[in-house]
């Protein structure tokens, strides 16, 4: 590299009279102007302690990325064969069977994930649609209507609920929610059955995606509430006061100030919940009737769920089917990633306006 200082136009890099840090030549346009100094390259030399800390933090930050990448590679590698032989059928067909002869050798097999993909999305969407209003209401309540001790207790219990083992939600859903939700499903079907979404071909309402969605909703409400509340709590006080000073009631203030400000947080919380709902295994496995047929009727007692499928089949799967399950895992992984990207996009778009 040639030193570009005006004192030593042709000096070599080890030229002593040139500042050490000036490594990048100034842009030509600037250098041409007669009396303008060249822009300096500004650098900082971090201290040793800073460097060490930086290395530690970088390692920590990268490790989660690396682990995530390795998991994806592992799943892709294991499921590769199935993905190739099944091709697009893996995502469009709904059959999941392995036929063996009397010696236990595989005669033929067919793996299709369509019903499970649809089912996963249905359950998760039901969950999010039920959870959002409840979460927003409780977040607003926690942020604007309670104060002091009660607020601390309520926040603590919401956080506790988020850490609840999901099998307990499953039990509760199975023994307590199911009999009641079946009745609700009948009511919905009776009065709103003309909407295709709420129609059923057969009057079977147990273990439906609707029920699984409800259990999931209860599971994700704490996390969505907690994210939304944190954002609502940060609503700028000057704006809140401006609204009150204009004669706003509390509700009017919330509509004009808190909701626009917290919209990004609500969407973000909901997406976090959606991600969790899609990946949830045990609770759904307990309450959902898994059927290898695409079913769009959320009240009908048949559904699918990728995570539950893996749990259901993994125990007695032979090597070939394990590979198929790995491929299914990869599909779930990508689906979650996709949802997160979309969520991120929505949050970025809707977040700015109210701020």
């Amino acid at each position, binding site marked *: 590299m040639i030193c570009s200082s005006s004192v030593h136009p042709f000096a070599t890099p080890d030229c002593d009279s040139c500042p050490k840090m000036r490594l990048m030549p100034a842009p030509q346009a600037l250098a041409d102007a007669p009396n303008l100094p060249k822009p300096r390259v500004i650098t900082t030399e971090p201290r040793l302690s800073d460097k060490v800390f930086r290395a530690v933090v970088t390692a920590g930050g990268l490790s989660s990325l690396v682990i995530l990448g390795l998991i994806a590679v592992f799943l892709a590698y294991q499921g590769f064969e199935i993905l190739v032989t099944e091709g697009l059928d893996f995502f469009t067909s709904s059959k999941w069977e392995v036929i063996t002869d009397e010696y236990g050798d595989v005669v033929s097999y067919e793996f299709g994930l369509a019903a499970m993909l649809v089912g996963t999305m249905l359950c998760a969407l039901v969950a999010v649609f039920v959870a959002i209003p409840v979460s927003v209401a409780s977040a607003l309540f926690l942020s604007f209507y309670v104060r002091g001790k009660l607020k601390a207790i309520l926040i603590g219990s919401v956080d506790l609920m988020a850490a609840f083992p999901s099998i307990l939600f499953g039990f509760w859903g199975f023994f307590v929610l199911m009999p009641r939700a079946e009745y609700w499903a009948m009511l919905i079907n009776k009065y709103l059955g003309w909407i295709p979404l709420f129609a059923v071909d057969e009057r079977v309402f147990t273990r439906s995606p609707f029920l699984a969605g409800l259990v999931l909703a209860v599971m994700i409400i704490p996390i969505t509430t907690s994210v939304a509340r944190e954002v609502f709590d940060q609503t700028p006080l000057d704006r809140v*006061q*401006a*609204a009150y000073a*204009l004669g706003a009631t509390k509700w009017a203030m919330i509509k004009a100030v808190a909701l626009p400000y917290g919209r990004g947080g609500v969407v973000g919380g909901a997406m976090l919940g959606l991600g969790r709902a899609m990946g949830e295994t045990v609770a759904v496995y307990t309450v959902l009737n898994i059927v290898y047929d695409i079913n769009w009727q959320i009240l009908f007692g048949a559904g699918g769920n990728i995570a539950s499928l893996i749990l259901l089949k993994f125990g007695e799967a032979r090597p070939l089917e394990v590979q198929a399950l790995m491929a299914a895992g990869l599909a779930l992984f990508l689906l979650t990633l996709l949802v997160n990207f979309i969520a991120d996009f929505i949050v970025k778009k809707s977040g700015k306006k109210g701020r």
Partner: protein
Amino acid sequence: MTMSTTPESLSAKQKELEKKMTEERSQSHTAPASLASVAQTKVSRPAGAKRLGTGLEARGVHAWFGKNHVLSDISVDFASGTVTALIGPSGCGKSTFIRTLNRMHEFIPTAAMAGEVLLDGKDIYAPGTDVTKIRLKVGMVFQKPNPFPSMTIGENVLAGLRLAQLKSTNKDDLVEECLIRAGLWNEVKDRLDEHGGALSGGQQQRLCIARSLAVSPHVLLMDEPCSALDPGSTLRIEETISELAESMTIIIVTHNMQQAARVSDYTAFFLSDGGPGEMVEYGKTSEIFSNPKDKRTENYVTGRFG
């Protein structure tokens, strides 16, 4: 709500005022002692202009934050059609006092108050009073401009109507009228659909003034409205205050003695020496600045302390 001046006559008047004020400013820069003369040369307001309400009266107001007694026994009568400046060193309770005047004080969890505040003769703290109605009549402009960023400029002006669920027959006219009165119309008339945050600080503050005018308050409280603004915007807002004072009661907190002398008819000097803040002296602005009765007032207005 009716306009007393048309836009054309307004801008002519503005120019005149501007000239006058720059003259005053240059005077006061060369000779700081001329505060008293600034206070005296002020244009006198035409009597008999259409007045909204009959003013605001504080009677024996005390304020506490928790156990901390910060304001002691303040009694002032703010007559309609006048501008009153509240001056005093930092922490003496000026903001606390004006926040008791529209019941914003009670938003601080530990806050308490005693005494009475009479709006058009009625105690605003009387049980059964609708607070939102009080705040509609007693508007407030804050130190930091705080337009609603999720709303457009036009929507910001109308925010008060929306928040208080009031009906308005002609919204466009109202927006124009309020923006003209706040001295912002010419700068924003072509960009009413832009967001409120897309304005400069001084413009945002004038937008906030326009916003509080839209609900036609009888009283306007201003807590250091110009402290974050450049001299040009400050001048604009001072003109606005003079115009508004023809029809309403204005109470302004300021740390700028020049400003107090320029815009106010009456001045109240607050002070706290260790204990709760008290009102040391209250009187005509010309008196306070030329011939204060209390030594402490004199020291403060001449810049010898505080």
